[in-house]
């Protein structure tokens, strides 16, 4: 860096340390409180150093919020969603970038627009679709009179039904469509030089061969970035699982359980248990981000706008 003003360097470090403090405090408090006993955690002011009760608090949180099976669910959902997104996004972006057909931009926008309207703004109607994912097709059949026709011909009434409530499919499938992922892949695919496509054409390979032999190996780092982002975001899903799992015991995810950890049930402000629970719930995505930092940052950057 040009200019070696020691004062400015000092200001820089001071600001970064302050920022680090700002960023780390919530993590630290969570850890500290999670490791204290009920008595310690209830003290005002709080002791800012971890104590020795982390394991027992984690145990308490684990049983109180039934985190065992919920962890398993969270992993199933997060991994399912991540894999699904990576696959679907790659396929869609491939079609949009490398094929010249009239509707390609339309398709892109159809997918991209969904980014603007996240689940939260269309909660209620989405729920009814989760109850029967085939409803649109049923309605289409009904409106075009096909249902009636078939019924009068064969006597069988077409009743399309696919209930997603309280199922892994329901937790995963609707989240698998991904505008972000498609966009990211598209951005990356667009950086593939034309010549590479042409070289492979000259070498005699068709589109799918190109996809598997050239495109996929080349997008490995992007895939990692995408995987990180997707894992974090699907692990952290809150509203959707909240909505479509009435059967929390079997299909709940850990993040949904956070509320159950907040004290109030029987009056003991056992924030230590709450924090220990929060800690384990935060940990998997945090680890993923910390470990995949390099790719993740790159991926986000190329996600650009």
């Amino acid at each position, binding site marked *: 860096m040009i200019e070696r003003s020691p004062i400015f360097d000092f200001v820089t470090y001071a600001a970064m340390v302050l920022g680090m403090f700002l960023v780390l405090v919530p993590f630290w408090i969570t850890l500290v409180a999670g490791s204290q006993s009920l008595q310690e955690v209830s003290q005002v002011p709080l002791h800012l150093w971890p104590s020795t009760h982390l394991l027992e608090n984690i145990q308490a949180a684990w049983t109180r919020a039934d985190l065992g099976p919920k962890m398993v669910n969270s992993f199933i959902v997060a991994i399912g969603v991540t894999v699904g997104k990576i696959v679907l996004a790659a396929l869609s972006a491939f079609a949009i970038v490398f094929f010249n057909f009239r509707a390609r931009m339309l398709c892109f926008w159809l997918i991209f627009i969904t980014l603007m309207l996240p689940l939260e703004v269309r909660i209620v109607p989405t729920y009814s679709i989760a109850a029967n994912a085939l409803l649109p097709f049923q309605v289409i059949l009904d409106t075009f009179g096909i249902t009636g026709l078939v019924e009068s011909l064969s006597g069988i009434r077409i009743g399309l039904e696919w209930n997603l409530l309280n199922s892994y499919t329901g937790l995963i499938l609707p989240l698998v469509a991904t505008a972000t992922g498609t966009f990211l892949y598209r951005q990356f695919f667009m950086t593939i030089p034309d010549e590479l496509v042409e070289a*492979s054409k000259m070498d005699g390979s068709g589109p799918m061969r190109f996809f598997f032999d050239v495109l996929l190996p080349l997008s490995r780092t992007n895939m990692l970035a995408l995987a990180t982002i997707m894992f974090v975001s699907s692990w952290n899903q809150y509203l959707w699982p909240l909505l479509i799992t009435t059967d929390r015991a079997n299909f709940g995810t850990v993040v949904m359980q956070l509320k159950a950890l907040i004290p109030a049930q029987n009056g003991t402000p056992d924030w230590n248990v709450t924090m220990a629970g929060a800690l384990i719930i935060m940990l998997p995505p945090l680890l993923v981000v910390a470990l995949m930092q390099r790719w993740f940052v790159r991926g986000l950057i190329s996600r650009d706008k």
Partner: protein
Amino acid sequence: MSAITLKSVKKRYQKSLVVHGVDAEIEQGEFVVILGPSGCGKSTLLRMIAGLEDITEGEILIGGTVVNKLEPRERGCAMVFQNYALYPHMSVAQNIGYALKVAGMPRAEREAKVAKVAKSVSLEPYLDRKPGELSGGQRQRVAMARAMVREPKVFLFDEPFSNLDAKLRVAMRAEVRNLHRSLGVTSVFVTHDQTEAMTLADRLIIMNSGVVEQIGKPSEVYHRPASRFVADFIGSPAMNLINGWFGEDGHFRHGKGGMIHLPSIASHVVSRDVALGVRPESVRRVAAGTKGALAAVVDYVEELGAARLIYADADGSRIVCVDDGNDALGTGMPIHFAIAEADLHLFDNTTGRRIETRPGQRAASDHLVTA
């Protein structure tokens, strides 16, 4: 039968016509270079041959077969791209062997073939490296090996050296030449670098804005440029082109009242708007008093090491002269030139075409131009 035949080949993008109907025959084993300024349609033409671009109109024949509707892989061409277009994730061996793999050749046979080709371009030590770990010249060689391994009927090159530095370029030029000499495969090579073109080509196709300006041997193109464009484009420093017209008195009038006496030429072209061309190396300095010398004033001098370029002003027209003299020359100093009439070229400024002033070719003549 020609190796490649182009019959009024046209290419239109949306509204704009970028290749205006090219006709050409390329012989078996010939090395043809397409040369022209950026954007003139060279790549487009090459890519139409390769099958990477649709042919809007006209026909392309390879080995006598119309290939307009054939896929790239069915045309038997191999291509070397400007930026090499190597597969970054594959090793050198995999890059070279990919086409064979796609074609379903068994592994053992493939490997043997790759090894053989790699050897012929001295790439054996690098077979396991990724393209990213190679130097520019090595990458270039991989690209060539990849093209060679398929034993194509035609090699296509699209400015394959433009990413190399000057020294490497010269070296690679020699390699391509050797390759062609040893394999004898028909080759079409696109470049906008005239040195490259001149030194490599059996024949040149000079293009400008989608139109072929001249097809011919390098020396032909240099010594008898078919158009003002070619004259200006080929040769460095560029040919001096002096705009003017011929009076009935056999004088060529130019600039601010300049006159050159050119009776033998004048007869062909009285009164037309023309350009008189002469190469800087054909302009000779003569002593002040020399009969018929062209008087001018020095503008500035560029030292090139081996020689120097003198930029001078003769009655308002710029004259550049290659000079290997050693004397001090400053701006504003008077200077005198002589030009052999045989070294003169004449172009019609309206059509841009050459006006032939003598039947024979570049005859030695010492008849001096006189003012």
